[in-house]
């Protein structure tokens, strides 16, 4: 079964290679190949998930065996957390590729779009699977360079400016991350995350570790757009074509930002109180400021982008609280609750924020505007878009029985049990503010009186776009089922276990 792991990287990369060549002669090849490839990968992740937890699966690229217990091959590691992330990326990627079939009708250069989408997917799957620091960097660069090009895909003034800003900040982040990797290699003389973890655990050099951690957290914080590092996100995510916004907000910032932070700070570095507090503070600040900034936006996609910052703050706060409790040797059950709340919110956010960006794309597709002030009364002419976006808005603001309610509830309960009363109060307050600005979005877009424009021509979007939106809306409801123990044990618990037993990651890899 571990022989199947490289497929997650190979299939998207091969698809990205074949699309520009064959797609030139065969019309429609790019759409079919991308959808089939992503569907296949989604099925493969579900298979991995159902095969159950157990030992992490290991694939040594090139078949190099460890020499005297030192791993020398490039490892691809599929443990609970990796499979959990793979599920998010591939399922959202599949739905986005279906949606793009119709959405892209008005763009030229469709081959390039689908090739870049596949490339981004290959990069993200690689980041999630890589058991090696330098390959994490390489795959991350593959994903972000593809995303730079995709943000600029419209090649109008705004898209180009957003892409340039994104590239300069992304470039600085990449330099900082590469610097961090260099420092780690200098100290530990290994690139394998597990092996480096073993060495760092036995070393006493605290100042070096903190120095490296600060560089890595700045780099990955820039990629995850935590506030003070968020300046590029509202521009980039609102300028990109809508399916790409859904990928960027729903998946990319999690796969290369938050996942990398979790993997490195739990499984490689020894947990330390200072870093845990720093991460939680970054998360809390993002959570609060992101939602306040979102309130003042009139552009639908900018509002959603700011809301992404806020929701990512929830995830980081949840995971960070667990980190603080573990670092202080507190109650492990509370820590597990906080971390599972964070991860639960991560998968929920992928579902509802992906859906909201697809809704915004559908609105833009029909009305050619994103400004809420000039929209209105769309609920009658676009019933499917209206109802799915209502579901997503309720989910993101935490109304039962949608999934967002349960994940926020778990985070808040964990915060109270862990005696973080301020964080619990903030989480409740921000949830109310989120409800406020999503109600504003609903009112101005779907329920107000129709604007001055001609409303006759507006009709529901084509089937392929509706299909993706409906599936994501069903997921928004269906993911609430993760609250039940039987389903949670299959999907969520293996990932939580990897994070909770952080120090067991290294021996379990090098021991194999």
């Amino acid at each position, binding site marked *: 079964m571990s022989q199947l792991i490289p497929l997650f990287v190979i299939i998207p990369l091969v698809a990205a290679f074949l699309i520009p060549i064959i797609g030139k002669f065969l019309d429609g090849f790019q759409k079919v190949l991308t959808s089939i490839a992503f569907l296949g990968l989604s099925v493969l992740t579900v298979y991995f998930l159902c095969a159950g937890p157990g030992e992490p699966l290991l694939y040594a690229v090139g078949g190099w065996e460890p020499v005297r217990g030192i791993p020398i091959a490039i490892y691809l590691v599929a443990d609970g957390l990796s499979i959990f992330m793979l599920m998010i990326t591939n399922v959202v990627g599949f739905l986005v590729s279906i949606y793009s079939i119709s959405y892209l009708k008005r763009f030229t250069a469709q081959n390039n779009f689908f090739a870049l989408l596949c490339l981004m997917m290959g990069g993200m799957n690689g980041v999630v699977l890589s058991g090696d620091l330098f390959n994490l960097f390489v795959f991350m660069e593959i994903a972000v360079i593809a995303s730079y090009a995709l943000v600029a895909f419209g090649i109008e003034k*705004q898209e180009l*400016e957003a892409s340039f800003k994104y590239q*300069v900040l992304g*470039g600085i982040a990449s330099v900082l991350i590469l610097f961090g990797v260099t420092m780690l290699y200098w100290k530990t003389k290994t690139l394998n995350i597990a092996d480096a973890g073993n060495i760092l655990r036995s070393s006493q050099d605290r100042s070096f570790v903190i120095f490296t951690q600060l560089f890595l957290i700045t780099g990955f914080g820039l990629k995850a757009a935590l506030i003070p590092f968020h300046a590029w996100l*509202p521009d980039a995510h609102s300028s990109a074509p809508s399916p790409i916004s859904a990928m960027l907000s729903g998946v990319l910032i999690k796969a290369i930002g938050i996942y990398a932070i979790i993997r490195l700070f739990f499984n490689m570095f020894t947990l330390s109180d200072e870093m845990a507090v720093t991460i939680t503070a970054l998360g809390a600040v993002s959570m609060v400021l992101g939602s306040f900034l979102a309130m003042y936006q009139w552009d639908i996609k900018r509002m959603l982008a700011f809301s992404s910052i806020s929701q990512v703050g929830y995830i980081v706060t949840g995971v960070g609280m667990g980190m603080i409790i573990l670092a202080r040797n507190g109650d492990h059950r509370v820590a597990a609750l906080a971390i599972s709340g964070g991860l639960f919110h991560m998968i929920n956010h992928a579902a509802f924020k992906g859906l909201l960006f697809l809704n915004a794309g559908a609105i833009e597709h029909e009305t050619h505007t994103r400004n809420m002030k000039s929209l209105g009364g769309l609920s009658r002419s676009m019933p499917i878009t209206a109802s799915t976006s209502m579901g997503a808005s309720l989910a993101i603001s935490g109304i039962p029985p949608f999934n967002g309610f349960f994940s926020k509830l778990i985070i808040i309960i964990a915060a109270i049990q862990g005696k973080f009363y301020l964080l619990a109060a903030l989480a409740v307050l921000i949830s109310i503010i989120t409800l406020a600005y999503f109600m504003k979005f609903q009112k101005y877009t779907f329920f107000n009186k129709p604007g001055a424009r001609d409303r006759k021509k507006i009709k529901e979007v084509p089937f392929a776009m509706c299909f993706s939106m409906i599936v994501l809306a069903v997921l928004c409801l269906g993911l609430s089922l993760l609250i039940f123990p039987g389903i949670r044990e299959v999907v969520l618990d293996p990932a939580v276990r990897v994070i909770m037993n952080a120090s067991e990651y290294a021996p379990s890899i090098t021991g194999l």
Partner: protein
Amino acid sequence: MILYLLCFLLFLIGLYGVITRRNVIKIVIGLVFMEFSVFLLLVLVGYVEGAEAPILDETIISGPFVDPLPQAMVLTAIVIGLASNAMLLAIAIRLYKKYGTFDIRKINELKG
């Protein structure tokens, strides 16, 4: 030691360029400076004083060897840097075509 300091100086020059310059192309050059200072550090990490290239044959069997892994890493990193710089410059050219200027104070359609 002096080499590491020069490497750090190169990084600071690049950072200064990115922060203070107003010209799009100069910002790109600043970023390239920052990237290459890290590449230089990566090569320095693998360097061992008075050591040989790690090519094993009959005459050279033991002795201090330089670390070949950072060299492989730096080659990969340079190729990645090439891709991202090409991307940046392509966007810079497109920006010039749309706005007719390289001045970032005049390229301000978005609020940030």
